[in-house]
């Protein structure tokens, strides 16, 4: 592995890890469910995406193979649906939104 790829891989790894962590922090410390919904569904997509990319690059030196991309594709397809379903569930259950939220969730 050339040093450059190594740097790139390392950087991507760190970025991925950082975003994953940030997403989790968001999940842990944001005040209400709807805000917490933002943490994971995004930061982790970026996080996983970056880690994925690092893996692609890392293994490209061993040989061709980019099935990691598919993981990202699938994640991008499904993550919004999970978020959507969870939001619907939360609205249905009347989960409280934080004070100062503009607008109202729909009645389900």
């Amino acid at each position, binding site marked *: *592995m050339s040093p450059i790829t*190594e*740097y790139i*891989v*390392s*950087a991507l*790894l*760190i970025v*991925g*890890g*950082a975003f*994953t*962590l940030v*997403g*989790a*922090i968001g*999940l*842990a410390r944001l005040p209400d*469910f709807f805000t*917490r*919904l933002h*943490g*994971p569904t995004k930061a*982790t*997509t970026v*996080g*996983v995406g970056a*880690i*994925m990319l*690092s*893996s692609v690059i*890392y*293994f490209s030196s*061993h040989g061709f*193979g980019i*099935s*990691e991309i*598919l*993981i*990202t594709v*699938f*994640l991008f397809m*499904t*993550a919004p*649906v*999970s978020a959507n*379903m*969870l939001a*619907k*569930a*939360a609205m*249905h*259950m009347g*989960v409280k939104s934080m004070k100062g939220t503009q607008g109202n969730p729909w009645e*389900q």
Partner: protein
Amino acid sequence: MMTTALYLTIAMVMVAALLNVYRLIKGPDAPDRVLALDTLYINAIAMIILLGIAFNSRMYLESGLLIAVMGFVSTVAMAKYLKRGSVIE
């Protein structure tokens, strides 16, 4: 260099997972828990890929692929249960 980055990343992902577990246990509402679980699944993908890099093996990637394809189904099922009760009707 890369090893350090790898370990750092693994540590960060593990801490993230820890935070997820914290949220999962704390709740307070069912959707929070499911959300935490969903996130944990995504963290698991990250962990598996990192594992693959650490072991220098691509044998584990498909496990990640599987989570990507199937993991959301349990989230969806749980969410649907929470609001609709019946998952398959």
